[in-house]
């Protein structure tokens, strides 16, 4: 459902940020994406939602392939994904309800359906009754839950979270993680990029991808991960182009 086949990526006139990436995420999986800052985690996520196109290889998301997708079709691919950012990405001038509804309004969904789904998503995130609040009236944890509600309101195949706990204190971070696990338990795949390794504690069975120096170094259960393991194919990445 999300599949990377020999993917290399980078930005214009710079070094490659990712090289030779291969992995596959199935429906209903929960996956941690880890690695040091600057290792290419965010770039990998951008490739999934096609904010960046690969230089080499192929990325498949649901029925879409990076090799064949036209620019016009990218919005439809993004509707298959729910995306959550570290800085929440909420529109401060819109209420909580409007922020969540926004993700469905752009799809042209009927108003009654939007009202019902917004209410359900906010309830699911423990934000019932906050629909008319503005983001800045909420705590950081609540704002991130609004962002998650917006990501899941369209019932996507997968939820992509880029350092969703980066701006939150440890207690709230754990709560956010549990919310994401609840969503995953209902069958939605979750890919969570983080460098907060405390979140991985007691989750030995959960799948972990470890990216370093632009390469995928590890893909397996968190419990079996050896941080000192050398890269499978180390060294500097070749330049772009």
């Amino acid at each position: 459902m999300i599949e990377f086949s020999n993917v290399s990526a980078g930005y214009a006139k710079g070094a490659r940020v990712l090289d030779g990436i291969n992995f596959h995420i199935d429906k209903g999986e929960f996956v941690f994406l880890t690695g040091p800052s600057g290792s290419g985690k965010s770039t990998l996520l951008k490739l999934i939602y096609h904010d960046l196109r690969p230089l080499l290889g192929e990325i498949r998301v649901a029925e879409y392939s990076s090799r064949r997708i036209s620019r016009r079709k990218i919005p439809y691919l993004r509707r298959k994904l729910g995306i959550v950012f570290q800085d929440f990405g909420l529109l401060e001038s819109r209420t909580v309800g409007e922020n969540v509804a926004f993700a469905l309004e752009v799809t042209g969904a009927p108003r009654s359906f939007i009202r019902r789904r917004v209410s359900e998503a906010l309830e699911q995130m423990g934000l019932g009754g906050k629909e008319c609040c503005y983001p800045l009236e909420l705590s950081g944890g609540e704002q991130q839950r609004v962002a998650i509600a917006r990501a899941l309101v369209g019932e996507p195949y997968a939820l992509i979270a880029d350092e969703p706990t980066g701006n939150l204190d440890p207690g709230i971070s754990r709560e956010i993680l549990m919310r994401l696990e609840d969503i995953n338990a209902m069958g939605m795949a979750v890919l969570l990029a983080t460098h907060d390794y405390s979140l991985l504690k007691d989750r030995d069975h959960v799948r972990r991808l470890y990216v370093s120096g632009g390469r995928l170094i590890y893909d397996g259960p968190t419990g079996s991960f050896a941080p000192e393991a050398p890269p499978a194919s180390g060294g500097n990445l070749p330049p772009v182009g």
Partner: protein
Amino acid sequence: MRSLREALLGFGRAKTMSFFAIVSTGFSLLALGMFALALLNLNTLIRYFESKVEIVVYIRDNADTGRVGMAVEDLGRVEGVDRVNFVSKEEALEHFRRDLGADSDLLQDLESNPVPASLNITMKPGYRDTLHVQAVAARAAELSFVEEVDYGREWLRRMDIFKHVVSVVGVISGALLSLVALVLISSAIKIAVFSRSREIFIMKIVGATNGYIRRAFLIEGVLKGTLGGALAAGGIFAITELFNRKLIPITGFTDRYYLYTVAAGALLGLLGSWISLGRYLRRI
């Protein structure tokens, strides 16, 4: 419908930016409108002076009236000629007497009428320049019974130069002013769009198509431009009224020109938003 709602909401949410864009559009169009008003009044003045252009063909005293009558018909058919009036010696003397006013007593002792008869030729609008007037005057001068032809050669020449200067200065200044207005308006819209680049990014991330985003922003741009245009039209009307009531009477815009001003605002809002938005939509 949803795009319209989105546009109206966006309009209200970014109040400062919307205000800035409306005022910029309004003042730029007001400046252009004032310039147009000045040109309009200069043209009215030019047309007034042009209406005074007249070719006077003086006729010899012994001229055959039949031939003069034929000449009136012939000259009346020349391209650009509006009217040919025959003024008899008696009428001419009467005019002269009226012109002298209080000094008309001087004419009491005249034994004969010294004032010649004439053909007074007026030209149609668009033909009241040196080239056409001179052509008609030359044709009249060829007639055998003509004593002299007078058409204010020097005055007409200066008038031509004045019209030329007004049109050249008008075109150059108008083009410069339009350019400044366009830069100012597009900058205001660019800033408004830039201030909402985060919003555009989020719209794209949740799966909004370029068309959906563009529609909302374009409707918003047209709304702002229309309000800016209405502001300019109101300003032009107020200034015209001020001149007419307190200063000197001037020619104002007709309803159609007020409508054009508002439409120009709407068009500028549409184009400005389209161009400014393009950058952000291409980026993601």
